[in-house]
């Protein structure tokens, strides 16, 4: 049998010699080096953001796309990497980014007016090289406009970052890069979390039982891994129970950042509530 197999193999190799080199040679699956997103649930789901390839994060507004992007930027800048953000509609907020841990002096922010500028600038940044992460934020660009971008643009970007340590992230409302992306995450918001300082309980689901102390605490989001070509077999073997249990989805929570006036007024309200308690001996409302 083995001699027949060998003869058959030689016959096939000679027949394909002019078209395919080494047709029976085993090719190792390319293993991507990854970097953490900064969100443990997502890192466990995906194994991290793959370097040298395109990652696509999409979802409707308020689904947590920007939070995931900012978390990735914070994670990379914390490791002393230089990052670039191509902001197609000038929506980046430095205050919330800095509060999330992004080192702003290591972030190159490009404020564009339209998608053409954004694509040209992205091309220049990728060709320049040396960035740990390049993000193209098309979240606020009309979906019709983004759909008009030919697929070969994303393919060209993917090829340009190949064999480099650069993480390229594309953020949008729907999936546009398709098979050009090595990792595709779809995000959706689950529910917002509200709380208040007084003892009036959680107002979630109620219709405006408003009190001066009610605060947005954050929200829960769900990330679904639509496509992942970047995982190495060992990671997949170790995490197969996660994938089976959660069906390639992960939940994560965000925490709202208090601004200075909220902090100040909350402290004032707490103080007033404390004083009223002492004077009346019970809970009081304004």
């Amino acid at each position, binding site marked *: 049998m083995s001699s027949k197999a060998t003869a058959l193999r030689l016959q096939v190799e000679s027949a394909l010699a002019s078209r395919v080199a080494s047709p029976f040679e085993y090719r190792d699956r390319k293993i991507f080096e990854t970097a953490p997103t900064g969100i443990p649930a997502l890192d466990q789901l995906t194994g991290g953001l793959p370097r040298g390839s395109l990652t696509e994060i999409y979802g409707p*507004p308020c689904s947590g796309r920007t939070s995931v992007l900012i978390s990735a930027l914070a994670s990379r800048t914390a490791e002393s990497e230089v990052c670039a953000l191509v902001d197609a509609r000038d929506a980046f907020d430095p205050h919330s980014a800095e509060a999330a841990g992004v080192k702003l002096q290591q972030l190159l922010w490009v404020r564009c007016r339209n998608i053409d500028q954004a694509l040209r600038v992205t091309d220049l940044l990728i060709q320049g090289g040396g960035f740990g992460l390049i993000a193209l934020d098309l979240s606020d660009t009309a979906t019709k406009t983004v759909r008009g971008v030919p697929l070969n643009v994303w393919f060209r970007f993917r090829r340009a970052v190949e064999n480099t340590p650069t993480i390229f992230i594309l953020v949008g409302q729907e999936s546009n890069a398709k098979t050009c992306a090595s990792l595709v995450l779809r995000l959706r918001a689950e529910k917002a979390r509200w709380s208040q300082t007084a003892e009036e309980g959680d107002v979630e689901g109620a219709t405006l039982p408003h009190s001066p102390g009610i605060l947005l605490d954050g929200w829960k989001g769900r990330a679904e891994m639509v496509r992942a070509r970047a995982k190495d077999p060992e990671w997949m073997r170790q995490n197969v129970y996660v994938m089976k249990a959660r069906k390639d989805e992960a939940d994560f929570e965000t925490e709202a950042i208090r601004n200075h006036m909220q902090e100040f007024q909350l402290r004032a309200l707490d103080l007033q509530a404390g004083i009223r308690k002492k004077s009346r001996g019970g809970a009081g409302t304004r």
Partner: protein
Amino acid sequence: MAFASIFVPNFILQAVVRAEPELRECALALTDGNPPLCKVVTMDEKAARAGIQPGMTKANAEQFTGIAIRVRSQAEEKTAHAALLDIGWSISPRIEDTAEDAIALDVAGLSYLFESEEEIGAELARRARGCGLTVRTAIAANVETALVAARGFPGITVIPAGQEAKYLSELPVEVLSPSEEIAETLKRWGVRTCGAFAELPVLQLSERLGQEGVRLHALARGESARSLSIAEPGLMFEEGMELEDAVEELDPLSFLLGRLLDQLCARLTARVLAAGTIHVRFELQTSAENAIDARKSVFFEKHAPGLYETQLQLPIPTRDSKMLLKLLRLRLQFHSPAAPVQKILLTAEAARPRATQNGLFLPSFPDPEKLEITIARITNVVGEGNVGAPSLVDTHRPGTFRVERFAAPVRTKRGGKKAAVQERPREFFKISTSFRAFRPAISAKLEMEAGIPISVVFHGACGHVLAASGPWRTSGDWWQEDFWNQEEWDLQIQFPLIERHNAAFANSLPSDGLYVFYYDTLRRSWFTRGIYD
């Protein structure tokens, strides 16, 4: 041997040739003066053989074929002299700025670097060629002898100590630079050479020619001894060029700028310095303004040149002329001069070149020079002020920030006790709710009930408020004209399906959205600041 001298023969001609190296191949004559009294002041050997003579008018000189005629340029002479000084400083820290076309150097101690005096002279000549000048060098035991020998002898001259008189004896007395009166007197006496002059008795010479004659006598004998008058090295490097015909297109202008940058970088390299900032100044050709001088009743044209100024601020000092030219081209493409360029002046502020050694295990980092070019290209696409590093401003005014020039951060070694204390470990980072801003803020209308928003209308869509947090009042800068006073709300809004499709908003509205609205009490209007995402 202690002193060297560098002399540039036919200095004003070489200053022009330095700016246009292709003129070395052809016969060249320089003119000076105001037209129509423009006359030839100097020429090279080829032009002299062709028949050009000093004092000839420009019109006569133009009759000769194959002669390139240029106007004498004070700006180019100034930069050529500065280049000469840089050549001297590249060899020795003690130099004397003797004349426009000559300098003297103290070369004591250079024997540790060079094997012989001839090698010192050859190195000086080589560096001068790198800066576009052909020079004569001389080395002697005293300054004056070196200066005289450099003027008199071509190539490299080394005069051993004690033999100054013998070497200088063959030179004509003109190399001593006597005054006209003394030169005339010497001519009448039949004294033609330094040797003949040196044999004259000094006592009688002093009676007839005075102290000046005694000084010249000592020069001719090689006995004059004096110390150097040290010149202070400057840190500003200038290269300029005056153009006969104004240049309008970017390509020919880039060619000229490239040449000037090459010369600038060659001088910086000679001084082991780099350019930290490049100032660019163009004098532009503007339309002639006609004016009448009432006193003289003469009609004349008065040209009022416009100016174009810009500067390149480099994050890291560099002396790469190609990179500087690329940056300059990108700047000119983005912000081009309004008129053809008549005169160019480049000034470089020198700084110590930065030497960095990259570690093997540090994260990837953009090359600073490539990054500067990339940022310049991006600026051409998105405009000034739209690319850089964001920076927060120390104020409570919402949404205030600055975009600063992006500079490659100083690379620090990761790890170590100090790093562990200063940087927060990754596991302590929380996932914060990020915010997307609407710039500019979108105008909105809110319906209130008992002081709480219950519905909103913005961008043509009407939504119901599910939850509200606020009002969070903030105000500031009341002592200034642009003070603010706002009431901010965090609102959870639900948009009905039909409203989402009809909305004029560029994007699809979410089923539930977390927005930030604020009421501007000064403008008495509601606005949407942005959305949580």
